[in-house]
């Protein structure tokens, strides 16, 4: 990593503190860390979602960089459009040939895993030179905690509620990071806001590759996860220590696990801090779902280690 902590702290503030995101929200932390990953001018395309509505309530804005929002499902298409215009004007000599602008799209898991999946897939297949960051809080939080395809097994959401005969969501989440790996783009990685060195370093790599890069960042949501706003960073680190959300990166198809816990913690340690899994700690059915979560986590972790040549 090129910059030390002091240099990062002294980086220009690109998303100011004057936004209206909830206390403890993982999103602004992730966004600020991502934007520290480059010193070049950066232009942001934002999908509809918490980040968008909470940072740009007209006539105010919390953004110190050019920022555009078109709609919910098209952050990748919008970023393609801006980047395409930049390339066009640069080629025509209307923008300085030495200019090195960076483009980044931010979207939630709803706008990425679900409705925005097509535009993301299309944009990276076309090879636009931009970084796509999924701020993944694992449900449609902006509209009241409805399930998305990023919602994990057993999660209590308003559309997969924990009821008498159903213990929250009955399916595991889509593995979108692997979907993006399958697109054979230069850089794909998973990170969390709790490990700033990891996230800023990955953002830096993502900005520096020639072509599309994808970062999937697990961003705890105190509202949807029903957790203490004070533990955002810790809870994301627990996701890593239980291997529920491994830190890894894939550069041109080459896997690298960035962090292997010395002692893999049981998933219960992560689950029990969150109200969204509270029902899993009552009765036999809950215990069965927790067992499934543990098995799924172990299986995926082993697969990942194999891909990285570490197993």
């Amino acid at each position, binding site marked *: 990593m090129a910059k030390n902590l002091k240099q990062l702290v002294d980086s220009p503030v690109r998303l100011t503190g004057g936004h209206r995101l909830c206390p403890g929200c993982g999103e602004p932390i992730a966004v600020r860390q991502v934007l520290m990953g480059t010193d070049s*001018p950066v*232009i942001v*395309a934002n999908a509809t979602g918490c980040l*968008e*509505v909470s940072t*740009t*309530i*007209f*006539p105010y*804005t919390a*953004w*110190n*960089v*050019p*920022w*555009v*929002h*078109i*709609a919910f*499902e*098209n952050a*990748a*298409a*919008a*970023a*393609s*459009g*801006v980047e*395409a*215009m*930049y*390339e*066009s*004007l640069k*080629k*025509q000599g*209307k*923008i300085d040939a030495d200019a090195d*602008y960076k483009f980044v799209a931010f979207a939630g898991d709803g706008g990425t895993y679900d409705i925005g999946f*097509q*535009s993301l*897939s*299309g*944009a990276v*297949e*076309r090879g636009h030179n931009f970084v796509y960051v999924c701020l993944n809080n694992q449900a449609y939080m902006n509209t009241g905690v409805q399930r998305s395809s990023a919602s994990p097994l057993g999660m209590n959401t308003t559309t997969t509620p924990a009821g008498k005969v159903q213990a929250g969501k009955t399916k595991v989440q889509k593995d979108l990071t692997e979907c993006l790996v399958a697109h054979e783009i230069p850089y794909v990685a998973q990170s969390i806001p709790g490990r700033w060195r990891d996230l800023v370093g990955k953002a830096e790599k993502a900005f520096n590759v020639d072509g599309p890069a994808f970062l999937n960042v697990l961003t705890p949501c105190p509202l949807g996860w029903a957790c203490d706003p004070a533990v955002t960073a810790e809870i994301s680190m627990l996701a890593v220590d239980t291997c529920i959300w491994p830190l890894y990166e894939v550069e041109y198809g080459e896997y690298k696990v960035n962090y292997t816990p010395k002692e893999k913690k049981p998933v219960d340690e992560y689950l029990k801090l969150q109200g969204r899994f509270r029902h899993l700690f009552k009765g036999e059915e809950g215990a069965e779902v927790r067992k499934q979560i543990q098995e799924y986590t172990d299986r995926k972790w082993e697969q990942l280690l194999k891909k990285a040549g570490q197993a």
Partner: protein
Amino acid sequence: MGKVMPLEGNNAVAEAMRQINPDVVAAYPITPSTEIVQTFAKFHANGQVDTNFVAVESEHSAMSACTAAAVAGGRVMNATSSQGLALMWEILFITASLRQPVVLSVANRALSGNINIHCDHSDGMGARDCGWIQLYGENAQEAYDNCIQAIAIAEREDVRLPTMNCFDGFLVSHAYELVEVEEDAAVKDWVGPYKAVRPLLDVKNPYTVGPLDLWDYYFEHKRNQIEAYVAAKEAIIEEGKRFGKVFGREYGLMECVDLEDAELAIVALGSTAGMVKDTVSELREAGKKVGLLKLRSFRPFPDAEIAAALKNCKAVAILDRAASYGAAAGPLYAEVTSALYAHKAEVPCVNMIYGLGGREVQPEQLVDIYKALEDVKSSGQPAQPVRFVGIRE
């Protein structure tokens, strides 16, 4: 001087796009507008344009990328039809709300279902309230001329509204006609260089485009957008005159054929107007006082001008190549009659719905429409406000 070339409507539009040389074209081709994008892709592949051509994965992304590219600060064009326009729908509103002068050529086609690839105006009429200027052309020449004028109208600083260049699918898009194609330099000169207004790529002056706009400001922003249409009307007239001065073909909000003393008139959009013109001259030779109002600008809708042109008629048939389900009549009828009412022009009108899904229109049917207008004139009231032309009953 330009040269006269045999061109299909689609290729005439592609020629105009080549001459305009936009900075970005992001498109997902769809029948019957496909050739516009295909021909343009060839121009791009042969280095005849500076455009960054982005072949996106859907019409939704096409309009999203076009809107964002325009926000970034350059000239942007695109083409579509039917389901493609419908898939762009959500973003069409946003292009207009962000006041981005994107120009979209639309080869009009029926909407599903059932699926039908042929001409009617369901797509354009469906998109009528998205906030775009809509110009309807009669033939390949007008599709070419309107494409060039659309750029100038859309980009005027007082307008800054996206503009659709509509023409009939297959009937115009795929029909060869002799088209007067102006010289590249003359077109380039007429259109002029693009003047960006607050480009997003001006990184030294960052700003926020497309924020959350609540009850405290949204209404005023919409009001501004509505006002831009007033300017758009003037812009269409002025740019049409300026175009006429340079290229010899003048345009306005509409074209009136023999309307000064007409008792019976037809109001129509698109290629049908060309057939009506022939019918009018035939019937005029037979001593009938008939006329045609060919509407060019559907948005903005020239209500006062239409009322003034039709006020002395004794009966008017308004031709709709689209239905408005559950409404009293077709969309053009509703708009024209409301204009007449608002401007105190008491003319009995009848709605003729025709040509849906590419159903052919014959000159005899147009003669029959004028005959039906004779009855409307003598009775003073339309017996049946909505009628269907050329349908199996």
